[in-house]
């Protein structure tokens, strides 16, 4: 592509962004002559350059737009929103053509006559139709190319035409308008426009043949560019005259990047020198080095500045977006921008543009209500979206707030539960702020309808991902009915980050400070202790459990010998990523340093654990840990555990049913367990309230006296402090089992591998890889409640036969049924059950159907059990239970009791 053309495209794109913003400002206040003037000038420049470069389509569109703008400027027309829309449409058309031009190098074919016609019609003062509706009428025959343009307008405006117009204007407004115009004319000297106009005119005359006028091009560029950059100084300069053209130059971004790299290296070299000199007591280098250091610091600052751009340049498109959204949605929206001058690295700037645009659209669409709803809520019709940017400790904070309806906590909660992001129980214990954060979860959208603007459910998680990609964080604060405020915190630059240097297995690594929440000492002497739940390590931090992962695991270094791990000191770096908190165990913590991030070579691209490398002051290279990789590792650790469990179950041939067991310690480290279904409650009772009576320990519990027995006969019940107690209830009587510590609740297939020869013990099973004693609850109940299994105590019991081949379940279910008030005959075969029935007809029969469903069916057809309900028991909820009264899962205590009750009642009715 022609170099001239390339420059033209870059330049024009910059102009157009400015025009977009200014037109919106102008629409809001059509009397703002200053804004109109600069819009006019920009469009005019585009037109002029197009003519010079031989781009007729662009030229004609720009010309027609300019004509209309000219009419606004000289006051013959007062801009209506429709007319502004028309100008915006022409700007959009110019953008389209430009995009094509950039891609192909030549102007695309196309017909703009409808748009031009509409613009001309509007310029003649007809009520403006939109371009779309103007497609039908034939374009007015007025010659478009003809030069009777309005360039000369400024001079003639002050004259007669004003009066004519003023005649129908209100008096007060008219005066200020004239003043404004006058002020404007004096403030912007003619030479600011005229050289452009004349040079363009000259170019138009010289037409495409002219190659020579290279000079006017940069000159033309200089003036508007100042506006594009928009600095306070520049505004002053513009008012002062056209002297400022030498104050800005266009520098290739690559040059700046190279400069930045060089300075980074200089900083590193300086650090190295400093370290060397620091080690010698008296050195002649000290003085010069001090100066070198100071100069380097200043140089670094200055170079950083060249990369800095005001955040306002990322916001330029927003007024137009808000305006269009407001029009589409029939809302009234005011966009307020604060802190536009806040500067940040241009690389970062590029990366936050899209997320910001997305969030603004969201605010327009979901955040703000329609005018009617707002009035009904007692707010003003005009909704406002506020953007605010400011610096805060090496970061830039961008706030996006609206005064709309706020987030609906209940809707988000429902949706989160429906999408399986959180369990229902957990959801109700979460704070509103925690619930609100679900909007950052993937695929989460509460919008009832998908609009052209937003609501496709790929919203905020993409925003969050993009922001986290550049090491930023996002949070929000919302009050229902009052509005929502998002906080985006991003680093000022990506080139230099603050990082914590840590050591793991004799090697140093850097962790970006931004992802670190806190640092916890977790050595053996520390109050925080690393605990292990089935090989998954957790840290108890204040009131929550933090999943832990060792940095060496993340790195794939073989784990440390577990026998030594207890004795060495360790630190836990608490990190946050994707809204998840987790801890990383490291051996040592050194220092925080400002590090220069260097990209990794392609050869290391497949490692994935590191986001880059850096050189420390001593010249050594260290790797920078990618927080995302650690986060993935934490997630994987969970999967590994699950996979291992599944593998074990597959090895056993089938998926055996699992039983929830509560695991605790009592009288020693050896874990003990009882089935969870037998336990009514877990209590922590104050040991000082325990009393003695009848040779037993008693406690007043819920208005009754409850006996407590120790789970381990040799471990005494505590007399001070808190005593954890498992509470069993039976027939309205409660008994407590005192234990030392409740460890875990596991859901595992239960295999009692060793039969017990001690009273009170069912046997030993492997739970979560550990040999665990499974206690016989009935033994303890009889210790606590001497006459517990005497069914005559409270009411006449119904007789139930339980057929179950597995002794564990037989022992598990019988106390359960007894505690529900039944007299249970537990047998292991169908024949035995039938034999029982011969002596006494049971109210109901429960039979296992997993082991031998064919023989279980014999119960159905046997005369001895005629009229008795037979309930099937299975480990699986979808076993074939045709013919049985009902099917119940063995582990489901509630429905088991309910089914038995139902079956027994049926018998009475019969």
């Amino acid at each position: 592509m022609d170099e001239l053309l390339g420059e033209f495209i870059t330049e024009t794109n910059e102009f157009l962004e400015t025009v977009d913003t200014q037109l919106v400002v102008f629409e809001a206040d059509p009397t703002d002559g200053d804004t109109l003037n600069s819009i006019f000038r920009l469009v005019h420049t585009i037109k002029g350059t197009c003519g010079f470069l031989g781009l007729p389509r662009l030229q004609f569109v720009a010309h027609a737009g300019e004509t209309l703008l000219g009419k606004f400027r000289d006051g013959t027309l007062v801009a209506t929103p429709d007319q502004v829309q028309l100008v915006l449409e022409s700007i959009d058309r110019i953008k389209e053509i430009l995009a094509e031009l950039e891609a192909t190098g030549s102007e695309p074919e196309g017909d703009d006559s409808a748009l031009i016609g509409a613009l001309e019609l509007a310029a003649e003062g007809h009520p403006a139709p939109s371009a779309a509706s103007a497609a039908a009428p034939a374009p007015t025959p007025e010659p478009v190319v003809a030069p009777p343009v309005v360039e000369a307008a400024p001079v003639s405006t002050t004259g007669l035409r004003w009066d004519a117009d003023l005649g129908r204007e209100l008096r007060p407004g008219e005066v200020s308008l004239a003043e404004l115009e006058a002020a404007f004319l004096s403030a912007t000297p003619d030479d600011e426009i005229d050289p452009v106009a004349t040079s363009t005119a000259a170019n138009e005359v010289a037409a495409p043949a002219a190659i020579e006028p290279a000079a006017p091009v940069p000159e033309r560029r200089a003036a508007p560019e100042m506006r594009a950059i928009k600095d306070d100084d520049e505004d002053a300069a513009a008012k002062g005259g056209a002297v400022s053209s030498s104050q800005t130059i266009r520098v290739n971004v690559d040059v700046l990047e190279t400069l930045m790299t060089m300075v980074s290296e200089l900083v590193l070299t300086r650090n190295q020198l400093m370290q060397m000199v620091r080690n010698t007591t008296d050195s002649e280098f000290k003085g010069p080095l001090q100066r070198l250091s100071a100069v380097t610091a200043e140089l670094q600052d200055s170079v950083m500045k060249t990369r800095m751009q005001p955040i306002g340049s990322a916001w330029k498109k927003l007024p137009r977006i808000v305006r269009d959204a407001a029009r589409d949605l029939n809302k009234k929206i005011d966009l307020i921008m604060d802190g536009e001058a806040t500067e940040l690295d241009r690389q970062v700037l590029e990366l936050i543009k899209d997320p910001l645009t997305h969030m603004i659209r969201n605010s327009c669409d979901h955040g703000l209500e329609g005018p009617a709803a707002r009035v009904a809520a007692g707010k003003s019709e005009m909704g406002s979206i506020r953007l605010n940017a400011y610096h805060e400790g090496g970061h830039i904070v961008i706030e996006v707030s609206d005064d709309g309806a706020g987030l609906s906590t209940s809707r988000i909660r429902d949706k989160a539960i429906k999408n399986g992001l959180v369990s229902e129980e957990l959801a109700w214990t979460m704070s509103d702020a925690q619930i609100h954060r679900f909007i950052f979860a993937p695929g989460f959208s509460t919008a009832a309808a998908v609009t052209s603007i937003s609501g496709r459910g790929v919203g905020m998680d993409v925003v969050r991902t993009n922001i986290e990609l550049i090491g930023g964080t996002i949070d929000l604060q919302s009050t229902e009915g009052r509005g929502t405020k998002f906080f985006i915190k991003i680093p000022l630059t990506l080139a230099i980050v603050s990082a914590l240097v840590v050591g793991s297995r004799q090697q140093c690594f850097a962790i970006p400070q931004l992802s670190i929440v806190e640092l916890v000492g977790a050595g053996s002497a520390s109050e925080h202790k690393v605990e292990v739940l089935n090989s998954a390590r957790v840290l108890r931090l204040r009131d929550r459990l933090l999943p832990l992962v060792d940095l060496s695991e993340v790195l794939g270094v073989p784990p440390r010998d577990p026998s030594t791990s207890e004795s060495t000191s360790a630190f836990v770096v608490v990190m946050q990523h994707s809204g998840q908190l987790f801890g990383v165990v490291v051996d040592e913590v050194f220092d925080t340093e400002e590090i220069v991030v260097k990209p990794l070579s392609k050869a290391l691209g497949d490692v994935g654990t590191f986001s880059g490398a850096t050189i420390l002051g001593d010249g050594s290279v260290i790797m920078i840990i990618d927080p995302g990789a650690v986060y993935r590792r934490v997630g994987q650790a969970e999967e590994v555990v699950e996979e291992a469990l599944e593998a074990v179950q597959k090895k056993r041939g089938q998926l055996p049913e699992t039983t929830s067991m509560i695991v605790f310690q009592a009288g020693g480290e050896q874990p003990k367990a009882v089935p969870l279904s037998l336990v009514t409650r877990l209590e922590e009772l104050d040991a000082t309230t325990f009393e003695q009576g009848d040779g037993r320990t008693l406690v007043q519990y819920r208005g009754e006296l409850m006996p407590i027995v120790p789970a381990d006969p040799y471990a005494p019940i505590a007399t001070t402090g808190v005593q954890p107690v498992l509470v069993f209830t039976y027939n309205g009587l409660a008994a407590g089992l005192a234990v030392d510590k409740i460890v875990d609740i596991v859901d595992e297939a239960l295999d009692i591998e060793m039969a017990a020869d001690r009273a009170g013990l069912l046997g030993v099973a492997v739970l979560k890889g550990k040999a665990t004693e499974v206690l016989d609850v009935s033994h303890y109940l009889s210790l606590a409640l001497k006459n517990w299994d005497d069914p005559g105590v409270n009411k006449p019991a119904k007789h139930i036969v339980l057929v179950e081949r597995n002794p564990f379940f037989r022992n598990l279910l019988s106390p359960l049924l007894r505690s529900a008030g039944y007299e249970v005959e537990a047998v292991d075969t169908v024949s035995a059950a039938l034999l029982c029935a011969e002596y006494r007809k049971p109210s109901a029969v429960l039979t296992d159907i997993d082991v031998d469903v064919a023989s279980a069916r014999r119960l159905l057809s046997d005369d001895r059990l005629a009229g008795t309900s037979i309930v099937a028991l299975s480990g699986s909820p979808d076993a074939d239970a045709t013919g049985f009264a009902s099917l119940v899962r063995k582990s489901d205590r509630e429905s088991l009791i309910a089914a038995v009750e139902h079956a027994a009642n049926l018998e009475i009715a019969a």
Partner: protein
Amino acid sequence: MNALATRHESELALAKAGTKEFVTVHVADQLFGVEVIDIQDVFSLKGLTPVPGARPEIAGVLNLRGRIVTAIDARCRLGLPARPQGFAGMMAVGVEYQGEAYGILVDSVGEVLRLSDSDFEPNPVNLNPNWKDVSQGVYRLEGRLLMTLNIDHLLCVATA
């Protein structure tokens, strides 16, 4: 003066006749040659940071005058046994590949040789495939053979 001029001319003539300049390096007991035009610099290894999880042939990263260089272990890449004493005291040949800096770790760096094309032979057919990938051929020197090393081929596997 005259002699110098003659020598200079003869060198030129040689160059025209088709010669190449090689830096000789030793990897294990084998003599290799890397073309001078491929080499940015030669340095002795000081400080190497291993990169956990990287491929075995990547020895680590190091700092060369403020640039981070990825070090490739030539022994590993060529399927030769690792040095018993580790990387300490090794030499590195600095090269540029796809705009990135790499260092190839070798046991020692020898001299610069100008070799004539007439001494060049393509790889023998029975050569180990590992070596065939990275070498274009062999130069017959007096008393020993010099394997050429092609840097691009050596690194393309590492970065693939």
